[in-house]
């Protein structure tokens, strides 16, 4: 027996078992189409999980390089899961590039378009999620509503009724509440507590296996933000992160020296100009994120360690935005920066839990919020905005824009030199979400792991090198 099992890998319980390498996707019924997930299974327990990167990636065609004005249509075509979002993003960035006062904001019409797409995107996700959960009814209804809203024939009251029925579905909350919790392995806790891998949502995160640079670029680029700009961000009270005690961390000034990068990239948009040259950001100030050795925003005190799986902000990687971040209580929503949303009294939808159920609730509540916003916009039906942007053939400049996509904040930066696109950087939320797959699946049973990955709503079109 010993001879047979001598070289086999050991499970955490000490048993030697043969592990299996399994591929889920890119056409798995319970995962988004195109998402390729490789897993190493110890029986039916996930040891390692990784999303395939760059499968749907592509290089910029010459036609776009030579004619940056075609960037909106190109990005819309390259991201079929959120074409309107990417088109608006590129238009904003081009307007910021060409305008003398580059601070492009969304019009009401554009905001309505964005919210309509948010609804269809969430319905599309719900259809896949319903399949993963084994609820054919949820899937069928989500598909029906998706098609109706795609064809501009959506019925808001029926959608609200559908959402209400999902919230009351028997057993669903119990099933999802333990799926998809973000786990961390705290090997090197600065408080001296030694934690084995355990299911504490919000107790810091272990990114020791992520190269620091890749991690920084995964969702949002930090390097172009001046430190002092963080002081300009008013109105973002991060002390609202439930369960997270910032009182002794000096957040109010956003000094940025504490390594709390998850704040600095989310709300800087209002004060950044498109043509502003950004100094190279001091990575050292965020070096705490690379391995998350600085657990300033981790919860080392015994009390916090023993917290239930409620929201403890900061436990997700800083680049995580969108419904996944909001499902862990992080009030991170770029729409709060937009005047058109501020005028509508926009508030961020957040829940506590940081699990699959809270992510489902956030998306359902966001759909209802979007419906109310669209209803309030009234006759402004969100027609397609066709802004013609002139790109001068001489000179150079930068364009930058951010937008709240259905999956999180997308940032587009480019440099145009003599009428041609010289450099472009697109930071997408799915890259960051793909980075946390390991943490939400490790040592989970296979079904829970797949549910957790499905709950992240990763767009395979957004994952690229």
């Amino acid at each position, binding site marked *: 027996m010993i001879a047979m099992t001598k070289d086999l890998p050991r499970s955490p319980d000490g048993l030697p078992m043969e592990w*299996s390498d*399994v591929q889920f996707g890119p056409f*798995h*019924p*319970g995962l988004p189409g195109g998402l390729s997930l490789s897993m190493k*299974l110890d*029986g*039916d327990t996930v040891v390692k999980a990784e999303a395939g990167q760059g499968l749907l990636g592509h290089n910029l065609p010459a036609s776009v390089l030579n004619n940056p004005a075609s960037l909106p249509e190109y990005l819309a075509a390259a991201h079929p899961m959120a074409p309107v979002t990417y088109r608006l993003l590129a238009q904003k960035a081009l307007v910021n590039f060409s305008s003398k006062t580059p601070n492009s904001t969304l019009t009401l019409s554009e905001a309505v378009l964005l919210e309509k797409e948010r609804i269809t995107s969430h319905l599309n996700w719900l259809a896949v999620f319903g*399949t*993963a*959960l*084994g*609820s*054919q*009814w*949820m899937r*069928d209804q989500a598909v029906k509503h998706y098609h109706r809203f795609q064809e501009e024939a959506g019925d808001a009251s029926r959608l609200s009724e559908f959402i209400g029925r999902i919230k009351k*579905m*028997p*057993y*669903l909350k*119990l*099933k999802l509440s333990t799926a998809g919790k973000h786990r961390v392995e705290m090997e090197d806790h600065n408080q001296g507590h030694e934690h084995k891998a355990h299911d504490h949502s919000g107790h810091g995160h272990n990114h020791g296996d992520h190269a620091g640079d890749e991690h920084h670029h995964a969702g949002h680029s930090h390097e172009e933000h001046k430190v002092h700009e963080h002081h300009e961000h008013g109105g973002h009270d991060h002390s609202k992160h439930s369960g997270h005690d910032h009182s002794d961390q000096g957040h109010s000034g956003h000094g940025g020296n504490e390594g709390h990068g998850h704040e600095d990239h989310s709300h800087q948009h209002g004060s950044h100009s498109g043509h502003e040259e950004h100094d190279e950001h001091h990575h050292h100030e965020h070096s705490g994120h690379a391995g998350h050795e600085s657990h300033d925003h981790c919860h080392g005190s015994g009390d916090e360690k023993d917290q239930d799986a409620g929201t403890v902000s900061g436990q997700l990687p800083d680049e995580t935005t969108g419904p996944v971040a909001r499902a862990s209580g992080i009030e991170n929503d770029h729409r709060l920066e937009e005047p058109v949303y501020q005028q509508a009294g926009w508030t961020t939808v957040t829940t506590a839990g940081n699990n699959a159920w809270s992510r489902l609730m956030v998306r359902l509540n966001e759909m209802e919020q979007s419906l109310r916003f669209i209803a309030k916009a009234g006759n402004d039906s969100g027609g397609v905005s066709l802004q013609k942007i002139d790109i001068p053939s001489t000179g150079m400049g930068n364009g930058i824009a951010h937008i709240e996509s259905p999956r999180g904040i997308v940032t587009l930066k480019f440099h145009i030199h003599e009428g041609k696109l010289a450099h472009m950087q697109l930071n997408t939320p799915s890259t960051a979400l793909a980075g946390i797959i390991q943490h939400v699946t490790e040592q989970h*049973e*296979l*079904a*829970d792991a*797949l*549910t957790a990955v499905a709950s992240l709503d990763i767009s395979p079109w957004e994952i690229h090198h």
Partner: protein
Amino acid sequence: MTPFLTVFIITLLFLSGVYVAAVMERWSVTGTVNWAGPMRSFLLLFAQEEIKTRKHDKVFFETAPVLFIGVILLTISILPFGRDSVIIDLGTGALFINAALVYIMVSLLMVGWAVNGVYAMVGGWRALAQLIAYSMPVVMALTATVMRAESMFLTDIVESQQGLWNILYQPVGFILFYISTLAITFLPPFNLPVAKGELAGGVWADLTGARKLLFRLGRLTLVFTISAAVVVLYLGGWMGPWLPDFAWTFLKTLLVAASFFAICRFMPRIRHDHLLEYNWKYGVPLALYNIFQVGVVLLL
């Protein structure tokens, strides 16, 4: 009615019942009633190429579907459809139901192993976990019905319900048996072995053609058979006014099958740890209580 005519009508009703179950299954998946759908699926699978996976276990690969359908046919043979309409009136009929249906999950485990694929293997393991979960409540609930009838003959169990059906006499037992038999049929929310969204079909993921057809057809027959068992044990069997006895059996069986598929459509899949937990922590004590309650009532 002559015995031959009775047998002919019962067989016809049974086959029709299986077809109606197929229509209901399609409704539970798609939300639409399509009467031609099952026939199309049957012809599609019948004509489909049979693909064998690499390094499959030949013995299990060939025998698992046969075992699956064989067990179901054996179960049908002992169920009484009418007062005098039973193929084999077995003296240990109630016990035989439980014993035979264990092999449903055994055949799923066999095919999970045979295919040499991870999806199917995990599905097979889940089938085993499911068997461990439901086996105690189902046999204990059966025991209570046997206690009341003081006999294991299924015809006697039906006759014992003359005054009051077992669904009212032992409601706890009925609920336990109903849920456990739903788990035997591995319909949603208990479709762990064949989870489409998680295992892309599980034990059936790598089956095609006639093998898959046998399993699909077998499950429909199983649903109808299990529904008939519920009717025999708890819903008074063939008892009812005006209509011939076998007609009542089939009507009630269709109702039970419809209820199975209704639950299918609106419940998410149960987690296997919850399944085990609920059955062992709550199901077994409730089944013991049911036996105790039936015993007390019988003695009074």
